[in-house]
């Protein structure tokens, strides 16, 4: 009998269906890989098991009996523990204190008892941890062990790890995989969310693949090669309906020369006027640092960004945090870059706003980009799609020679997505050099005349005849990187 079974789980957030009938079955003494693209629903599915997301429909069974998991404490009581990407530890407390935190009666344990108790726990699970160390002084790998130890101390039989190796150095990864194998041999069920093929093949015995909220495969890992896994993850659907713009490449507009920074291991790229180049890749492979370098908010360790056809305008990937000032109005957001340059005419004269001109700018943008808002509305009151259109309008106001768009349609509905993509095509046709950085493979295929894959801070070029989901999917998993 399986230890845990999630069957036909459905979950909707607002208008997006995160899970559309996802299933996951865990056997005792097994390490189970959960694989899928960004946004495929992996995190939502394990959160349903951990009780931090309530499914709209579906059944969760533990040892054959259906259960309701209302919250994480209920999950813990049922023997389900989770190691989060962002550790849930109290930094100022010692290792021993964090270990017993939340255990009934632990607040009254004398210090010496606490320490021996913690030491026993660490020994039992074979974890080398100093009980007296202050948690925030620990290296990341040790914090992760502490999280694992805490879940085990609470009696977890099922351990969920959400991309645990993203924060680890290669040697630490081996230690972690060794630990997971040991726990498996003790009979624990482990769910490992990972994008890294070598880790999956090293330690996992089964794999479940999610695509767009659905389980598309669940089978033993034996006999699957990386080609097959990549195909399972991204599917072999027909090329998407939209096509890259057909434009002639003009003179050189942007040159990235050997960019190195934390998270970037040497990026070289040339972009010509009228070209639309797309960078695919799984999140966390350098997208964030590259965006920050191009936005001018992160210093380079080495290399150079040459903008030969200025200005460079950026469509930031996080429109709520970096794209817009949500509590300023639509019109104020539109002219903020001009204010940053000291108040340029016609909207500003001698540094003072000309209200008529400001209103004009906003009503034009609202009409051209079909933004559903009035100029004085705070950006916060707009829907995600309309916020993104404001962001697009602002980037294009600068009449850029180079336009960089980072995940420009993330979280948008179909109509807004189509509108934003068409805008990027139109810019390329108008002679702008457009660089798209997107974790969505369909978007990359639909827009990119040339495609490269970001993997561990490097660019892997994709041959022009290999613009297929399967080929790019393999590169995204790092095949051929070494």
């Amino acid at each position, binding site marked *: 009998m399986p230890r845990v079974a999630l069957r036909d789980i459905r979950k909707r957030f607002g208008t997006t269906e995160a899970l559309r009938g996802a299933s996951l079955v865990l056997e005792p003494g097994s390490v189970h890989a959960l694989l899928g693209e960004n946004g495929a629903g992996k995190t939502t599915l394990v959160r349903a098991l951990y009780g931090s997301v309530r499914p709209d429909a579906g059944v969760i069974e533990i040892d054959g009996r259906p259960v309701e998991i209302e919250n994480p404490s209920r999950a813990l009581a049922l023997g389900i523990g989770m190691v989060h990407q962002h550790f849930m530890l109290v930094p100022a407390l010692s290792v021993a204190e964090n270990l017993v935190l939340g255990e009934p009666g632990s607040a009254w344990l004398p210090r010496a008892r606490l320490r021996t108790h913690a030491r026993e726990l660490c020994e039992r699970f074979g974890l080398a941890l100093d009980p007296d160390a202050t948690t925030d002084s620990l290296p990341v790998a040790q914090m992760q062990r502490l999280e694992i130890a805490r879940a085990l101390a609470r009696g977890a039989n099922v351990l969920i790890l959400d991309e645990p190796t993203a924060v680890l150095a290669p040697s630490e990864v081996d230690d972690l995989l060794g630990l997971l194998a040991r726990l498996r041999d003790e009979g624990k069920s482990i769910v490992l969310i990972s994008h890294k093929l070598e880790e999956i093949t090293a330690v996992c015995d089964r794999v479940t693949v999610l695509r767009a909220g659905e389980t598309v495969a669940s089978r033993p890992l034996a006999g699957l090669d990386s080609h097959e896994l990549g195909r399972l993850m991204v599917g072999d659907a027909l090329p998407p309906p939209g096509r890259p713009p057909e434009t002639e490449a003009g003179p050189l507009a942007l040159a990235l020369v050997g960019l190195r920074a934390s998270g970037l291991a040497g990026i070289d790229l040339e972009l010509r006027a009228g070209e639309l180049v797309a960078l695919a890749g799984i999140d966390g492979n350098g997208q964030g640092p590259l965006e920050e370098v191009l*936005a*001018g*908010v992160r210093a380079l360790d080495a290399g150079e960004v040459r903008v030969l056809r200025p200005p460079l305008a*950026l469509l*930031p990937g996080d429109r709520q*945090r*970096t*794209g*817009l*000032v*949500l*509590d*300023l109005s639509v019109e*104020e957001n539109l*002219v*903020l*870059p*001009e*204010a*940053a*340059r*000291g*108040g340029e005419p016609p909207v*500003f004269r001698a*540094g*003072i*706003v000309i209200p008529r001109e400001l209103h004009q700018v906003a009503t034009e943008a609202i009409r051209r980009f079909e933004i559903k808002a009035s100029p004085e509305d*705070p950006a916060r009151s707009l829907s995600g799609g309309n916020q993104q259109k404001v962001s697009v309008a602002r980037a294009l106001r600068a009449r850029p020679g180079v336009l960089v768009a980072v995940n420009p349609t993330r979280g948008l509905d179909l109509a807004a997505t189509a509108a934003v993509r068409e805008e990027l095509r139109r810019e390329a046709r108008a002679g702008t050099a457009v660089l798209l950085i997107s974790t969505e493979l369909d978007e990359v295929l639909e827009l990119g005349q040339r495609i490269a894959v970001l993997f561990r801070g490097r660019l892997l070029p994709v041959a022009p005849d290999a613009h297929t989901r399967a080929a790019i999917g393999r590169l995204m998993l790092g095949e051929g990187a070494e």
Partner: protein
Amino acid sequence: MKLLRALVQPLAATAIALALAAVLLAAIGADPFSALAALAAGGLGDRIALENTVVRMGPLLLVGLGVALSFRCGIWNIGGEGQLYAGALAATALVTRGLGPEAGAGSLGLALLVGAAAGAGWAGIAAALRVRRGVSEVLSTILLNFIAVLAVAWAVHGPLQEASGAYPQSDAFPDLARLSVLPGLRRVHLGLVLAAALPFAIWVLLFRSSAGLRLRAVGLSPEAARYAHVSPERETTRVLIISGALAGLAGALEVSGVTGRLFENLASGYGFTAIAVALLARLHPLGVLPAAFFFAALATGSGAMQRVAAVPSVAVQVIEALVIFFSVSFALPKAGAK
């Protein structure tokens, strides 16, 4: 309609605070109605009371304006007191030592400018510490307060002490360096007209200029501002300097318009009450006008309340505290929203 909505919360906070103050006054055995009536009469009751209130309002208005501006930029300048003292000290040093008694008519304007510059410089230290070394401006401005207040104490016991050496105070300002009292009035001086005009100028700066848009953007979201090529560091420095200049000007106005010389405890506590003024005004430059008037009236009326109703004047500090408490409890506006 918008104005009405903006007024509801500060008025409600004040009303609740006064009601609670009445209960407290009754609890210490005073007649709350006669005490509050004495407070009102002492602050607003006749021409002399009104003039005293308006004179007190000057520094509260200017320092409060600077506080409101810096809070809008997400900068917690608690150093109004020190910046005011720095302005008063610099203006006095210039008038009594730098220029000498035979200085011409320009000395007044020069004194006000030097006072504002000194306040700006004093706040500029906090700006430099924050931008270069990451020192919280809350900490540095509070500590700079102590230095400025003690520097004034040292100056009036030492280099700036009056020629006769009788008291720890500076020489009196010559007439040419004093702000004249408005015709027909006893105490209200020309500087207060300037002070009353500044909220309108700051309103234009904050809501109708590119500089104001930048500093509000930084206050609301430093990251989004940076992505729009606004430098939070530069805006932080600017706003602290403007805020310090306003407080420094308040100090210079106080010595050249009200006291006529520098001494210890020149304007004790004004820098702190000004924070309450800015909060009650909900960080709006025009709201600072009535808020400063209200706190000035409370301070002026407290003496009368003590005489008439035998209530200790410190009770007024309790009322001030209650007003602050309730105006802060009603949610403050987001730092940069209109």
